[in-house]
């Protein structure tokens, strides 16, 4: 247990000062705007909780929330088994291990506004590698007007983009397991599945929670990439939470946009707090 010493605050202060300036002050202004009808920033009227009441009665908000929740659930169910599976298969030797890590990390460094463009080029029926392959196999792929295909494309793109993060984090968790654990399991005659269940999975919990927080939050608030594919269409089928917000800001509806932002912040904070409780519970048990 580290010793108590409140002078440690001095060391934390510079980081907190920056966070207050770029995070807390803007957050407080958003909360403030959410109670006003704003024509220009000098010309605004107090409307109390009107925007919130409007929003909570708006079926479009709940539909978008449902779509985002479904999207996040699919992302987690696809990317976690896949990412952990890849990590288990990765070679442990230095050369091939780092080659694989480099390949897995590549999609992470692509600017987010370019990701839809790359994928649209990839599935283009006339010039794209995947698009031509599908056409040759007789698969009609129409992401623009077929909602199922839109979803499939966004999920494939998101998996391509992020599965490397899950795999790299899991790989780092696996590399930290001492060889003695495997030897002990081998002496006990444990099979591959048992080793995974009783040796590897418990030691992966920490990194997997980290990956889960990042993936759940980023997929719940997906904006740039999903908008680039089909701008929320066809017929609103891929309008996720943050896409609505982006449109409101673009239309200069600052009051309602601020109220919507505050609701999203509350959602994010609730989830952060829930994650914290789960993590602390896990740590106390181990």
């Amino acid at each position, binding site marked *: 247990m580290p010793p108590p010493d409140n002078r440690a605050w001095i060391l934390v202060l510079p980081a907190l000062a920056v*966070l207050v300036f770029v995070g807390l002050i803007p957050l407080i202004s958003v909360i403030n705007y959410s109670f006003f009808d704003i024509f220009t920033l000098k010309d605004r009227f107090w409307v109390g909780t009107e925007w919130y009441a409007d929003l909570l009665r708006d079926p479009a908000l709940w539909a978008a929330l449902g779509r985002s929740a479904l999207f996040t659930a699919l992302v987690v169910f696809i990317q976690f088994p896949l990412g952990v599976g890849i990590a288990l298969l990765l070679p442990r030797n230095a050369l091939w291990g780092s080659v694989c890590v480099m390949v897995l990390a590549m999609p992470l460094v692509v600017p987010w506004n*370019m990701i839809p463009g790359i994928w649209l080029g990839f599935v283009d029926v006339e010039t794209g590698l995947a698009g031509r392959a599908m056409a040759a196999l007789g698969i009609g792929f129409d992401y623009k007007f077929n909602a199922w295909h839109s979803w499939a494309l966004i999920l494939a793109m998101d998996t391509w983009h992020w599965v490397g993060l899950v795999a790299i984090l899991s790989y780092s968790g696996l590399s930290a397991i001492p060889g003695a654990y495997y030897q002990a399991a081998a002496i006990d005659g444990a099979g591959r599945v048992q080793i995974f269940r009783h040796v590897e999975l418990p030691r992966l919990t920490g990194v997997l929670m980290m990956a889960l927080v990042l993936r759940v939050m980023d997929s719940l608030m997906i904006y740039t990439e999903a908008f680039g594919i089909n701008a929320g269409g066809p017929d609103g089928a891929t309008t996720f939470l943050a896409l609505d917000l982006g449109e409101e800001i673009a239309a200069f509806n600052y009051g309602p946009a601020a109220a919507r932002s505050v609701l999203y912040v509350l959602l*994010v904070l609730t989830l952060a707090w829930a994650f914290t409780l789960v993590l602390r519970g896990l740590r106390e048990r181990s």
Partner: protein
Amino acid sequence: MRALTLVAVAAFILAPFAQMLMLSFTVTLPHPGEMVGSLSLRNYRAIAGDPALTASLANSLIYVSANVALTLAVSLPAAYALSRYRFVGDRHVLLMLLAFRIMPPVVLSLPVFLLFAQVGLLNTPFAIALVHCLFNIPIAIWILESFISAIPRDFDENAFLDGYSLPRFFLRHLVPMIAPGIGVAAFFCFVFSWVEVVFARILTSTGGKPITMAIDGLFGFRTDVGLVMAMTVLSLVPALLLIGFVRRHIAKGFRLRV
């Protein structure tokens, strides 16, 4: 079987990149003397000849380096404090880090724009460098904290007994000791800052545009897809170089402490 699966995964990841690379060497709009669809270096020559595009490369490198430097400078002491001491409110600090890391940028984009307008930071790369600290400081603190916690406490105490002050201890002992951790933290800060577009867009509407926004500007009535792809390829180069440097350390030390 194992090798086959890994090759399939690699193919899935690399195929879109292959497509992008191919398009970047292809003529995609009619130009005098060149056929649409023919292979050519014209996209790359067009970038080299366009001052707005080359300036955007410089802007991106400026803001991302400034961000990494600032983030590391404030995160190292904070990570040390969180690793070595308990203090009033330390758990709240950790929760706040988590909350700011997962805050969607689109929620804060408007007030950040107004705030930065008031202090006269708009349309410079430094505005982006500062605002990206929002999600990079938490990441850097988590990574550095786990590297510092891996060092036994005796290491600090011996240095203090030798008469080192805290700043001198940081520079002479701690930084060399956790150099891989600093590399990994710098890598993740670089990556998350390099790919972000929501803040970058709202803060650089008229000047100081980074690569991402320069690419956005290329889209129009008749988009030159080849040029867009060539710009994207260039935008990947610095990040790929960085992956090469930290590849052996990436897979170490990244955990969430709350």
